[in-house]
């Protein structure tokens, strides 16, 4: 079992991971790295759900299943995102996010 690790430890990890992901999203110029940051974010959420489920509400598997669905969604999202990134690469000859600002104001 989980031993003496308190729930809060998990939450700290997930929170930090979440915001690291956000940081990556905000600062990485490469579209694919931004996508990776998103994966970090989703992963942190998964940790949250799983930890809550395990520690607090083990009578049902709600959090567990939620994580499962998130993984599936993440996959779908990644697929579409990568398709679009490839499309961007074709159109812009670059996957630098700052190049993708034709429309503004």
């Amino acid at each position: 079992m989980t031993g003496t690790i308190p729930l809060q430890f998990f939450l700290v990890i997930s929170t930090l991971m979440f915001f690291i992901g956000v940081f990556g999203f905000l600062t990485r110029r490469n579209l694919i790295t931004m996508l990776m940051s998103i994966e970090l974010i989703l992963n942190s959420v998964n940790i949250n759900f799983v930890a809550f489920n395990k520690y607090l509400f083990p009578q049902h598997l709600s959090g567990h299943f939620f994580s499962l669905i998130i993984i599936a969604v993440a996959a779908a999202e990644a697929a579409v995102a990568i398709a679009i990134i490839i499309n961007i690469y074709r159109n812009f000859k670059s996957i630098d996010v700052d190049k993708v600002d034709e429309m503004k104001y």
Partner: protein
Amino acid sequence: MSIYDFLTMRHELLLTLIAILVLIIDLNLKPSQKHYIIPIVQVLFLLHVVIGFLPGNEGVMFGGMYRSSALTIIMKNILNVGVLIILFQSVTWLKSPDNREKISEYFILLFSTLIGMYFMISSGDFLMFYLGLEIATIPMAALAAYTHHQTRSAEAGIKLILSSALSSGVLLFGLSFIYGTTGSLYFDQVAEVYSNSSLQILAFIFFFAGMAFKISLVPFHLWTADVYEGAPVNVTSYLSVISKGAASFILIIILFTVFHSIAYLWKDMIYLIAILTMTVGNLFAMRQKNMKRFLAFSSIAQAGFILLGILGGNVTGMTSVIYFVLVYIFSNLGAFGVVSAILAVTGKESMDDYDGLYATNPKLSLLMTLSMFSLAGIPPVAGFFGKFFLFTAAASAGYYWLVLIAVLNATISLYYYLLVVKAMFINKNETPIAYFKSDLPTRIGLLACVLGIFVLGFWSQIYEIISSLSFGIVNF
């Protein structure tokens, strides 16, 4: 669980069926016959719309994950009507050489997002809600990036998918804390125990930010304009009315049913955001020259008005929001329909190109004018009623100052709506867009908007029906 229970889910099931049917038919069509799918889809969807209006079961299924009530049914029907009009309006564009190869994919993606919205509206727990939200979003990005050779389309796609991924990440983060603090994902169970501890408020705000992204509320709106401008016009109109409408529906349902224990808090928050949204939307819209971008900002401002109805926090509020979305669908689709018709034929989408349009295309101009007036809330067209009831809802909760700010914002919005009218009627143009005749489906789509814009306001029955249905859901 019997076979009849499936009737409760008829919207979702039928549409899934149609989507699969489209896929199968498409596989059996030769490349040169691909466009035959269009009338088939239109008929099928029309059928779907009609069936949707038939009296149906209400009930809770899958242990509370799926809830169907008269209210959700009417919400879905409202969306259906909008989608039907979009289907008609997008024919010209679909038949263009660029898209000939991927007509049925357009429909499938469109329908899958719609299915997602159905599930979102009918969701009884956060899992289904989230799933619905994602189904409504991810194919949307593919649709936005639909036109290959246009950089703008691709840009719209990437902006949409990245922004929405981030926003759903934030939303999920919030949801995880909601789960962690309440121990459940079911709406009714969450509602029972939700309170105002810091973490729960934080969770709520993160959740709300995700929703606000979908409805494009300031400051979560920034993707809107770029995506609307870049995406193909019919996708834009879909995004701006159907997507936004569905999100508004579910937002109001969740706020009213799940988070009513912290209503005092979200009301203050929405108060703030409503002002920001209306004002910023208006300020940006004033300067736009691209029609799609212009309508994007206008739709942001409109979202701010929707918040007023939500603030009402009662039956009037609920009714007014649903009614407004209905009216808004017709008004905005009227505007987008014209933009789309002109874009499909001439490829022009700048407001300057609209100068002197009335001289050459009076009917389109009139429809555009009607839509603009309706969006601005000018009687006797339906938009007036829609806005008035939203303001009534806000006033019913005593938010007079907010109503004042909102109405003044409506006045500012009138300014830029009138700019369009001015372009068409007053501005002189050496080379106006030449006269053209749209094809039949487009014209049907446009005519439907005219009817809606005129009839909805005067025909009070519709408002009354929505109002009677709203009683069920508002229980505090």
